[in-house]
């Protein structure tokens, strides 16, 4: 046995070109597999990140009564002791921000036309810690000045024929169901990647709303941002844990995580995962073709050698064993290099990421891309890749060598 291994090793070292070529096929195939797996997962992650930072946030909290009546957006059922809740939430270290929001139904009017809208009241100091509107802002954010300020989605503003620094009339019912209407100064517009947001967003500050809606600081919703983790499943865990501890401490509240809020979207992501697996299989299939052929070629090259060995008394079993060991060496070499290469590039992707707005094709589509595509570590995929490389190398060595060893010795010696 040991002799066999020694011979196998020497064979492998002897013909470096052949060895390297065979191993290289494995390496390239595997590293592509690892990287692609990472990018596909990262792509989905980028989608979810964007959804979280623009609309769902990591966790949304409201009272049970409010949640049940949510469709009519009542200005009631506010969160009692909102400050206490906010303080409790911020104690957790994974929380990078928590902000209150209140929604209301209203109408925008430019005298020509009225448009029904759903408005949001935001806390201009803390809202940015949860929702990153910065990147999509045209004009300015709220300045906190005395006058009524408002921010609109860009498409909505276009529909109403207004722009930054124009004025528009907002009409709504106050907390006491009294009608109020007033002029608002448009300080900024939002131009995001989602046309729905661009058409439907109306934001005013709590200070303005206290006066305009008699809000008296009514807070109907609190949004929480949990720190992004490199691994999506860890992030999801963090969020779920936090949600549960909030729910335990404040049992009368409805606490929803982004997985519930974005369930339809995540459902489609499931499909993408399945498709991704099919793609991965194809990559591995191509790599397998390459490995197989490569090893097959080298076996055929050495049929005469096999003949010589058999003439010298090597048994068929030992011949096959020899090739298998050679296959193992090549397999290890190729798989190792492949995994190292793949992980190396992936490290860059995971830490630095790829800025989406630099992606050439995107720039022509007219959509204001923003964000970074980060790779994701998928240890399962990496291990699978390594094993796959080994197995294919082995199979590729076993089958042809079995066939070759069955040949009559004399024929083998004469083989060209």
């Amino acid at each position: 046995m040991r002799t066999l291994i020694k011979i196998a090793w020497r064979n492998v070292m002897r013909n470096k070109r052949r060895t390297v070529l065979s191993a290289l096929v494995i390496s390239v195939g595997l590293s592509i597999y690892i990287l692609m797996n990472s990018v596909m997962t990262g792509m989905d992650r980028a989608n979810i990140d964007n959804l979280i930072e623009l609309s769902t946030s990591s966790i949304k909290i409201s009272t049970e009564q409010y949640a049940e009546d949510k469709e009519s957006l009542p200005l009631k059922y506010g969160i009692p002791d909102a400050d206490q809740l906010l303080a409790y939430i911020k104690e957790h270290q994974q929380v990078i921000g928590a902000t209150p929001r209140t929604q209301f139904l209203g109408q925008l009017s430019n005298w020509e036309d009225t448009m029904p809208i759903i408005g949001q009241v935001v806390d201009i100091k803390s809202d940015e810690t949860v929702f990153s509107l910065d990147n999509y802002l045209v004009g300015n954010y709220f300045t906190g000045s005395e006058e009524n300020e408002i921010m609109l989605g860009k498409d909505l503003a276009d529909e109403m024929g207004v722009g930054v620094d124009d004025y528009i009339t907002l009409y709504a019912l106050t907390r006491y169901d009294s009608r109020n209407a007033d002029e608002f100064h448009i300080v900024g517009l939002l131009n995001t990647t989602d046309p729905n947001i661009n058409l439907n967003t109306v934001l005013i500050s709590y200070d303005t709303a206290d006066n305009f809606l008699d809000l008296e600081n009514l807070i109907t919703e609190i949004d929480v941002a949990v720190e992004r983790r490199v691994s999506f499943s860890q992030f999801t865990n963090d969020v779920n844990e936090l949600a549960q501890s909030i729910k335990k401490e404040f049992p009368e509240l409805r606490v929803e995580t982004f997985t519930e809020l974005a369930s339809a979207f995540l459902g489609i992501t499931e499909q993408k995962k399945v498709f991704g697996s099919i793609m991965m299989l194809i990559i591995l299939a191509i790599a397998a073709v390459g490995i197989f052929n490569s090893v097959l070629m080298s076996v055929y090259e050495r049929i005469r050698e096999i003949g010589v060995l058999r003439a010298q008394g090597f048994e068929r079993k030992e011949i096959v064993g020899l090739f298998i060991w050679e296959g193992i060496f090549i397999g290890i070499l190729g798989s190792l290099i492949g995994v190292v290469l793949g992980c190396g590039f992936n490290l860059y992707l995971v830490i630095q990421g790829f800025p989406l707005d630099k992606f050439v094709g995107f720039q022509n589509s007219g959509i204001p891309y923003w964000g970074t595509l980060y790779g994701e570590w998928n240890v399962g995929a990496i291990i699978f890749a390594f094993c796959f490389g080994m197995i294919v190398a082995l199979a590729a060595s076993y089958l042809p060598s079995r066939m070759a060893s069955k040949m009559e010795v004399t024929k083998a010696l004469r083989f060209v």
Partner: protein
Amino acid sequence: MRKILLFIAIICISTSLNGQEQGITGLEILEKIDDNEFYQTIEYNGSMTIYIDDQIRTKELYTLAKSDGRKALVKFTNPEDYGTKYLMLEDELWIYFPSEEEVVKISGHMLKEGMMGSDFSYEDALEASKISEKYDVEITAQDTIFGHLCWVLKLTAKVKDVPYYSRKLWVDKEHFFTWKEEMYAKSGRLLKEMNVLKIKQFDGRYFPVESEMVNKLRKNSKTVFMMDDIAFDVDLPDDIFSLRNLQH
């Protein structure tokens, strides 16, 4: 005795500078309007015409109302809505749908919607007489509109749950009914305007038989309300205004 007289004198002087010539207060004017428009019961045919941009829709209705208990029964008689009925009791509203013979109660936010898409909301219709409870009244001027001399009253909300924060009324000095009303938002923005277009005299009382409600937040948007065949103080037993009757 003297203290009381002094007290009355002070009140008379301070509360109605403009009403000095007759010593009348805003509150008293409101009461007189109520007297004028007061009826035990009323029965009439009416129509509501809704104008939005170049769309015109007309609804015809037959109404019975009783002030005791603030009851009203409205039946729509125009072809598209024939058979639909509204029953109002105090501040509750039920609607009867003839196609399915079913009654549904309307509450909450729905009351703020315009009736049949008009500029009169259910709330506007139901609310009528609680005005003096929720508003402070003062006489701010005298003005002539539509050729008639009027008191101009300014009503400002005393409480927070009023539909309109402040209102201005032009009240006919001679006959005490409202020619015009403006409804304002908390910000001071004019929201709606009600103008009386035609009045008719019934046994010494003056009743508006044609009025319009104009939406001041949007151009070309108003509703005109007309009343015909008006009969006052007809005998209307209470069970007309019942849910059971609604379903027939």
